[in-house]
């Protein structure tokens, strides 16, 4: 049942409160926390916020639900956490905090509405049988009209974003493959033309067209395999570089590029036959010519 929704809303609200408090200079020192009467409620802050605001475990901070910083409440930083890498929030500020729900409700509740202290944005439910999520959601909707219940996995718009991005990347890959193939063909046409005399001599000494063609195919396969493997090594070598750059740029632990065995196999499976085909296509026009044409200077 939308497992991330609740935590996201609370995190977002808390992040807004906390960033506001910090921005207003309401942060306090550990000394103040020690001087406070009674134990302060705990709060966890993200690594990014801790770094930006110079917070450490034991620091005390003041949070407020009011944009002007009014009615603020003091908290003690109980820990610093690394936010869960979330591709959907890659550009969002990672200045966030986690509070106990009663503490957050106490700050955000509307005094005129007694129900507001009993109100949350969402409830996450872990089912004993996760396969029954869709059925369970339907039942909740039927029993409590006005409530929105949906399974966390499958069919969400977040998944659709990545499906679209995958299609976009695939389209770019197709264009790149087409361009590479055309270039490869141009190169092989030139290389084959360069070997016109050699092919002519081979034909003159008795080698059949099929024999020469099989030689061309094998040669094309060897070159294509070597090229594909080199490309793979280059990809693996640059994988870390790309990840490090984007992880630094977005300040996240997300992995952006991962060359899996499936991706590697798919690359080789496309590159090798294409390379061999380009060799064959380029050689075909030459091999159709007569032996005398090939051998003449």
């Amino acid at each position, binding site marked *: 049942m939308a497992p991330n929704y609740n935590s996201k809303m609370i995190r*977002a609200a808390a992040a*807004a409160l906390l960033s*506001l408090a910090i921005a207003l200079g309401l942060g306090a020192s550990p000394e103040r926390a020690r001087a406070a009467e009674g134990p302060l409620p705990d709060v966890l802050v993200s690594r990014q916020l801790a770094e930006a605001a110079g917070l450490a475990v034991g620091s005390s901070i003041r949070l407020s*639900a*009011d*944009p*002007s910083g009014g009615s603020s409440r003091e908290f003690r930083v109980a820990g610093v956490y690394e936010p869960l890498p979330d591709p959907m929030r*890659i*550009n*969002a500020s990672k200045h966030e905090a986690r509070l106990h729900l009663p503490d957050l409700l106490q700050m*955000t*509740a*509307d005094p005129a*509405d007694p*129900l*507001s202290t009993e*109100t*949350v*944005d969402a409830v996450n439910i872990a089912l004993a049988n996760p396969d029954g999520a869709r059925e369970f959601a339907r039942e909740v*909707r039927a029993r409590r*009209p*006005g409530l*929105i219940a949906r399974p966390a996995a499958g069919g969400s*718009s977040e998944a*659709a*974003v990545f499906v*679209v*991005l995958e*299609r*976009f990347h695939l*389209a*770019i890959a197709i*264009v*790149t493959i*087409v*361009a*590479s193939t*055309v*270039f490869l*063909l*141009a*190169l092989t*046409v*030139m*290389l084959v*033309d*360069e070997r016109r005399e050699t092919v002519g001599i081979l034909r003159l000494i008795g080698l059949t067209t099929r024999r020469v063609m099989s030689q061309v195919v094998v040669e094309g396969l060897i070159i294509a395999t070597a090229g594909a493997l080199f490309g793979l090594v280059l990809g693996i070598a640059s994988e870390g570089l*790309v990840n490090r750059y*984007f992880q630094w*740029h977005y300040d996240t632990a997300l992995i952006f590029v991962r060359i899996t065995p499936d991706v590697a196999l798919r690359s080789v499976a496309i590159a090798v036959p294409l390379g061999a085909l380009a060799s064959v296509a380029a050689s075909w*026009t030459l091999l159709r010519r007569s032996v005398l044409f090939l051998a003449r200077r």
Partner: protein
Amino acid sequence: MNALAFAWRSLVRQPARAGLGIAGVAAVAALLFDMLLLSRGLVVSMQDLLDREGFDVRVTATASPPGTGPRLRQASRSAAALMALPEVDEAVPLGLSEVAFDAGGDVGSQQASLFAADTSRRRPWTVVEGRDLAGGGQPTGMVLLNRNLAAELGRRPGDSVTLRAFCGAGRSALPLVSLQVAGIAEFPFDDPTQFSAATTLGDAARACGEENRDEADLLLVASSESAGAENTRAAIQFLLPDLYALTNEEVVARLQQGEFSYFRQISTVLVAVTLGFSLLLITVLLTVSVNQRLGEIAALRALGFSRRRVVADVVCESALMVGIGGALALPLGMALAGWLDRILKVMPGIPAELHFFVFEPRAVVVHVALIVATAVLAALYPMQIVARLPIAATLRNEVVS
């Protein structure tokens, strides 16, 4: 015969080779052109969408995007204060919320976005059927639906609809409210599958059970003709220092730093990869081509062609190949951009009017500059081979082989 004509004949002499080379350049350059369009496409398109509404400054309670942060309190009073500024032509409070329409039958309820605005001369929507909302923000009992929602609910102007609003924490059991459909409207930021509706702030407050509430998510401000957006923003900030005012340019710049940055990053990476790829391939093509004609070039030198002249031939051949390929890349790139745009626009939440690839003259200028630089760089190594070619030794080798 000048160097260009000579290079042209060299290309024409081997049409298959030249054609494939040009086709390869065209394909790579088309991808390069598309990445240039993508690098600023969302920014240009979003700026156009924002400007089209007629409002050039947006005012919110905090730096958070509208709908995600605290709401503006005393919105009407703030709008009235802004209207008194000479720089401001119009200030319209706008509220955003979620509602569920009673769809009847098996469908049950249909969730939709509800825009609530005080009516003004400029509207953040376009009425395409029926009539617009009337009044100055007071409850009118009228609502506008977008086409998707009207079709889903099976309603036309004049019909009535029943809705329940979700007004944030503590209001989960609000009563149903009946409104009459005034017309069908298009909302600029709707995605193709979105359900949207609009009503006055008064009706939205009534739906939330808070008739006296005077809150909005943002104020849309239109500058007067004499004052620019930046001057208006400064005047607003001076008058209401607790609020956040952003011009459309600043909104777009924020998006470029945030939500749009992925596409800027990927376009930068792909521009670099594409340029490197085309540079490498064109260099290889020219080098192989020159190596095959070493005897011919040495003979030309022996006949009296200067070193500069044969180098110019190579540069011209590179320029012709890259130039023709680059020119073909423009229409090819536009067609490819249309395809890629259609792929990306399926992404949920993307307004139907927003485009990822947008044509700009400056993209063509950058494209041409990059293509010229690639042609020159790709020709450097073959030029060096030709310039340092030993005439006698090359001719002797040619005869001996």
